[in-house]
């Protein structure tokens, strides 16, 4: 079976497999990060928020864009991670990396607990269940008996975060936080890329395309989806953890529907199923919402709503899709996705 003189093998067959190639595009986010650091030194907090959102969006992209899991409650994991990191810093140690690991573990564990039950359902039932779980978590966090742990409506605050590597303190200008987020973003991105390019990545895409067929190929679909969900949950939780550590504040809004809705909008805006969409969408959304929310939060909501409606009709592949179509027209050779 190997090394035969088949005329077309294996180059064209190999090319028939899409992959997320490492190219100059992948360096852009960090180039941008460096540029922003020097060009807009007063906006580091916003930049950090963008990067946290990118991580969150990457997490959802894996679950939804690649796996087809329509989760409207991903804030549950973000919130779990945020609270886990906050509680860790408050009660155990203020060392940040361990806090991040704890956050990731908490998110992964949460996904592992609800995943096997939720992922047996599909369609609107699944959407509704993800919503219900997130709402449930928010209600629990707000409950009186939970107050000592989560701080209830006041949230968690007043905890310190120790310097990174013992040297780089989290300063008020947010420089350490900025590079911290950038570093984690790099790790998360490369992990996502590896997963997407792996055989498991192909399996996941197969599940998204046709679950019944996957079962008839002998693949235990629910178990694979749970694996994906755990990874996605852990990543989202890490995003929440960074948020908790950098802002030194965790509130109920980390679990709110708006959090889930926002990250979904980011992905629609940027484009699902390409990883790059997470970068584009999160950046555009966070920057715009920061500017707009200052002016008028309700008008911002209005604009987001309109964008969603129009995007579904006119740009279902988001900004990435628009860019790819434009690149096609101009005649640039496309990276296979």
């Amino acid at each position: 079976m190997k090394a035969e003189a088949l005329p077309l093998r294996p180059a064209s067959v190999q090319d028939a497999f899409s992959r997320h190639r490492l190219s100059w595009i992948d360096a852009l986010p960090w180039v941008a990060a460096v540029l922003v650091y020097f060009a807009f030194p007063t906006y580091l907090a916003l930049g950090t928020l963008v990067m946290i959102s990118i991580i969150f969006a990457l997490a959802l992209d894996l679950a939804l864009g690649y796996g087809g899991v329509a989760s409207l409650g991903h804030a549950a994991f973000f919130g779990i991670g945020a609270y886990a990191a906050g509680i860790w810093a408050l009660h155990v140690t203020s060392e940040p990396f361990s806090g991040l690991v704890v956050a990731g573990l908490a998110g992964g564990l949460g996904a592992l607990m609800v995943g096997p039950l939720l992922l047996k359902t599909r369609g609107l039932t699944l959407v509704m269940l993800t919503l219900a779980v997130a709402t449930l978590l928010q209600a629990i966090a707000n409950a009186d008996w939970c107050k000592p742990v989560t701080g209830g409506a006041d949230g968690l605050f007043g905890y310190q975060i120790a310097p990174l590597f013992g040297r780089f303190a989290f300063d008020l200008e947010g420089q350490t936080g900025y590079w911290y987020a950038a570093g984690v973003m790099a790790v998360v991105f490369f992990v996502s890329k590896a997963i997407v390019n792996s055989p498991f990545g192909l399996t996941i895409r197969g599940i998204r395309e046709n679950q019944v067929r996957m079962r008839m190929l002998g693949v235990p679909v629910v178990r694979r989806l749970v694996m994906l969900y755990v990874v996605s949950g852990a990543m989202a939780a890490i995003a929440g953890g960074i948020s908790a550590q950098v802002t030194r504040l965790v509130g109920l809004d980390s679990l709110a529907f708006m959090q889930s809705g926002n990250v979904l909008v980011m992905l629609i805006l940027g484009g699902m199923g390409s990883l790059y969409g997470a970068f584009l969408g999160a950046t555009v959304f966070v920057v715009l919402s920061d500017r707009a929310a200052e002016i008028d939060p309700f008008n911002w909501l209005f604009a987001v709503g309109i964008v969603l409606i129009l995007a579904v009709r006119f740009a279902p592949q988001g900004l990435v899709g628009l860019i790819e179509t434009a690149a096609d027209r101009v005649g640039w050779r496309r990276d296979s996705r």
Partner: protein
Amino acid sequence: MAQGQPMSPPALEIEGLTKNFGALRVTRQVSLTLEDGARHALIGPNGAGKTTLVNLITGLLAPTGGRIRLSGTDVTDLDPEQRVALGLARTFQITSLFPALTVAENVALALCSRFGLDRRFWGRMRAQVEVIDGAASLLDSLGLLALAPRRIADLPYGQRRLVEIALVLALEPKMLLLDEPAAGLASADRHAVLDLLLRLPEQLTMLIIEHDMSLVFRIAKRITVLVEGSVLVEGAPAEIRANQDVRDVYLGTRHHA
């Protein structure tokens, strides 16, 4: 099953299989035995419950009663995935593939599953030489190699049908269920499918549901006629062709169609 003969258990054995949807009895006490290498066809008028029977055998539906055995193993309570692992494969009446993926990726999914690679999240897919070589040679042997980089969504229906057969063959199944493989195909494509089916390995057991009688009589060595959920008659093609009850059923339904 004759006693005292040292033969291997039948590839497929269905005993008294029943399926009710509430008061609706779709499958009634169906029994069927297929030996290794059988070429068996299941025919019957629309609504006879043929696809339901296939869904029961593959495990997508749970039976109300009866038992199913694959090569001697009782699979009645097993999930579809587990039955596939035991060597069962099927094609669907409406081609069931992965539209946004390429032909090569489709076949690769079957191979990954077979090699147990489907959960490997390290290593690049493009570096899985066994899978890629396997996909290449399978597609080549079926004359579909040129289609490898094309997306399923971009292929005409006839070619998709062939890809689906390639997909199930990639599993190297012992027992193959084909649900109307020629449905919706133009005659040229129909010949291509027939050719392919005739060239399949002899030890592969096949159960085909079909309406296209010419295909049925070319491939099948035994035929079961299913009417309103129960077996009307079973026998060799010549017997079935001559059977008066069968003719009545078909003539009868043709009147009411």
